[in-house]
């Protein structure tokens, strides 16, 4: 998966995130955590479990339901020399605090000509698939990646989750850390088993802005992030049964975007499918396709395809949500439509 030490100890993404934060808190007194229900409860999604017991209420601070205040306070504390890790419980709640995020956290470095640093991590839960409807199930990858001044990472497995968290805390810039609820490993929330992988005990970083090839192939490149990676890996198995060799790329970071990695893969395979659980229009899928096309359209042997979320609010009812979400079958169908077009000489 990545270039760390192989480890027999498997962790969930939630455990891996908490471990990374704890290790940084042990070595760096500037690191502290705040958010709603992150102390005694250990985070609604488990990613701060154990921190309150080890570090106490000063450094692991439950906040009032007051996202504007505590996220803008994090920006102020970061500018004053601290390294806050703050949690926005669901990414969908960004509506009540976006000014703190994109007008302060993301712009103060630029507006100060680089003399003010804002080293903070804003971690927030994304993703649907469990009938929580459209105010608790969004991904919003494109929303955050679109706005300049903040790095954006989103792990698909526990190894990357720990390494990206460590890298995010150590980064001198603000980092949005998106974790998908369906990969988190919470007992009460269905979990993708492939997200639970070996995680070294010692601290390590996964570089921000570097994609990973998680499966090598020669016929088509499937690019995804978080849940999209797992759909892509399953689709690659289905395609392999049909004699098609798919390469799967996990972007891991949306900002900076590892465009070179995608281009190199498409140069090899000549075909591109982009998978994203975020709304399709004006988002990651279009950005990846534009990256390839702008670079060298002649690399492509077939029209690129995307499997995104339709431009609709996320519905509650199970059959409606399942209809809208990306899945492996949709990726296989995208490949088949690509092949059909090529067969027609289009």
């Amino acid at each position, binding site marked *: 998966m990545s270039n760390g030490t192989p480890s027999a100890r498997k962790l969930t993404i939630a455990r891996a995130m908490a471990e990374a934060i704890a290790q940084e808190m042990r070595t760096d007194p500037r690191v502290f955590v705040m958010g709603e229900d992150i102390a005694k409860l250990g985070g609604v999604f488990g990613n701060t479990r154990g921190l309150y017991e080890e570090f106490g209420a000063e450094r692991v601070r439950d906040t009032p339901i007051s996202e504007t205040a505590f996220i803008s*306070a994090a920006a102020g504390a970061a500018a004053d020399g601290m390294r806050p890790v703050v949690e926005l419980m669901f990414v969908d709640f960004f509506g009540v605090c976006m000014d703190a995020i994109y007008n302060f956290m993301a712009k103060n470095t630029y507006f*100060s000509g680089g003399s003010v640093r804002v080293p903070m991590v804003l971690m927030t839960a994304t993703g649907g698939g469990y009938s929580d409807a459209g105010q608790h199930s969004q991904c919003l990858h494109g929303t955050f990646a679109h706005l300049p001044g903040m790095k954006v990472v989103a792990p698909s497995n526990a190894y990357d989750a720990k390494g990206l968290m460590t890298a995010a805390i150590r980064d001198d810039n603000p980092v949005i850390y998106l974790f998908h609820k369906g990969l988190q490993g919470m007992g009460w929330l269905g979990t993708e088993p492939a997200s639970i992988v070996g995680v070294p005990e010692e601290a390590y970083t996964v570089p921000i802005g570097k994609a990973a090839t998680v499966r090598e192939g020669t016929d088509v490149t499937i690019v995804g992030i978080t849940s999209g990676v797992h759909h892509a890996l399953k689709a690659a198995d289905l395609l392999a049964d049909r004699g098609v060799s798919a390469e799967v790329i996990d972007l891991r970071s949306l900002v900076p975007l590892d465009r070179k990695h995608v281009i190199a893969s498409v140069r090899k395979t000549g075909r591109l499918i982009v998978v994203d659980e975020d709304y399709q229009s004006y988002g990651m899928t279009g950005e990846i396709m534009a990256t390839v096309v702008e670079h060298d359209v002649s690399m492509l042997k077939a029209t690129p395809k995307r499997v995104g979320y339709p431009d609709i609010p996320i519905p509650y009812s199970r059959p409606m949500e399942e209809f809208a979400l990306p899945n492996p079958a949709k990726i296989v169908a995208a490949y088949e439509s690509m092949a059909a077009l090529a067969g027609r000489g289009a």
Partner: protein
Amino acid sequence: MLPTREQKLWMYERMVASRYFEDTIEAIYLEGKTPVFNMASGPIPGEMHLSKGQEPCAAGVCIHLKPTDVVTSTHRAHHVAIAKGVDLDKMAAEIFGKGDGLSGGRGGHMHLFDPAVNFSCSGIIGQSVGPAVGAALSRKLQSKDGVAVAYLGEGAANQGAFHEALNLAAIWKLPVIFVIEDNSWAISVPKSASTPVEHNDVRAIGYGIPGHYVANNDVLQVFKVAGQAIERARNGEGPSLIEIETLRLSGHFMGDAQQYRPKEELEMLAARDPIPAYRGYLTTVDALTPQEDAEIVTRARKRVDDAIAFARRSPYPEPAAALDKVFV
């Protein structure tokens, strides 16, 4: 708590410097904007929010602050920046959009950052109070000396961010002081039409913290009240809220014809100007002599003139430098 004569003159000099700075900026802002007023033209483009009339709010608070203390301010921040000791050369150059500006021209007059004196301001109403609360939290967590002061206008006291910030500062007992500059006007909307209480100091009650009200733009009263609040914060006793009745001598921004403002109020502005009133007080009570006054005024003006000359001399930034400093 009464200021010494020396402190009184310190405040006077900052007020005079600030006023002269704004007068100068006002004149330069109009260069290249006649006969047709176009905000994008001239050596100082963009919106310009002058702080004339609000000088007591800056001088009376910042006299109690050290460079290590944190101040966040608003879109109308020149007076506070000057009282806090922001590098005036770099500040003027920033306002001119020049390469030697505080941010090399990326921020402009609404986004001034001087980490050397822990000053910043923002163009988003009410939102700069949260970062001050965070700076105060940072000082508490690091057991580091220092308080934070968040400036806002009376219009911003109806923003959710203000109330959330007060609440957070109060429950965590943070060393932060919220200073509301009540100039009665949120662009064209009078306070009476936006605010259900006569004075915002009473809103402190809802958060269990002290609230103070200063009437008549009185710098000596600001000095007294701010001194108490800042001392309280330094002693670890938590936040305070201060509302100061002040005065917007100019329009909301330059080019604002202010037709919404009653004629009688506009006619009374000069009589309510805090600087001549304070000069009169100093002359009467503290025996400020004409010679001493002239020295102060000359010194203040020279400092401003030097800064403006520096700004004019400074080259424009390389256009492509716009791509830098997004990340460090």
